């Protein structure tokens, strides 16, 4: 996976995306603007972070899951 390492920890781009969610729920477009990552990377990255239980999708926006919040402190 590109955003989550095999040990379950977010990669550099995964951490960037999680940090972008710290202030509250965001759409992929908002996360792409804030992180400077291409939108396609953000869409797939948020999907991975959600599957790994680090983020949650609600009403087309993503927010930090408890585990994701713990990891970025």
């Amino acid at each position, binding site marked *: *996976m*590109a955003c989550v390492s095999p040990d379950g920890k977010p990669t550099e781009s995964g951490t960037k995306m999680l940090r972008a969610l710290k202030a509250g729920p965001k759409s992929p477009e908002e996360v792409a603007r804030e992180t400077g990552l*291409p*939108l*396609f*990377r953000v*869409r*797939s*990255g948020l999907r*991975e972070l959600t599957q790994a239980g680090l983020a949650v999708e609600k009403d087309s926006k993503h927010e930090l899951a408890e585990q994701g919040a713990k990891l970025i402190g």
Partner: protein
Amino acid sequence: MEQTKEQVNRMPRIGEPAPAFEAVTTHGKLKLEDFKGSWLILFSHPADFTPVCTTEFIAFSEIYPELQKRGVELLGLSVDSVSSHIAWVRNCQEKTGVRIPFPIIADLNKEVAAAYGMIHPGQSRTETVRCVFIIDPDQKIRTILYYPLTTGRNMDEILRIIDALQTTDKNGVATPANWRPGDKVVVPPPNTQEMADERLKQGYECVDWYLCKKKL
């Protein structure tokens, strides 16, 4: 007489929706829909660590900033593994100093290659030929180019096609042979006799009623 059974996939055509896929790439698992809203150039190459392909990847990387200015993403594909792609990308950077900035699909089971008609058995039964699919932000196929294994692609032409398609979409015009940005464009031909009569009075540069050009 022994007959060989072979699955023949229908090739996608210009104007049709691009076949959906979910694929393992050097940038993680990507779906076609992840590119929605952007132009996308999906292109295949025969194999990693081969000479013509390496020159093409360097050339695609060189035009990548120009493509990004035009809202275009690049996505490579071959039937090699993701480990092979990673090793090749690292080797390109080590030997030439060029970083490959775009993802490459590892299409080991040839699913994407089959959906896009990228394997031409007359050339090779195991490798993809050099295909280019230009897909618009609505995920419709707008251009298809096929090159044989021995001929590297022309990046100027790929950029020119992107400029032509975007100019066409924005201005409702067509582009003549060898058109370049800044050149005159072709006004769509009239559909009725009345429009044809009027066309010649509209101040365009006309050869005749059916071939008129204008400056944008």
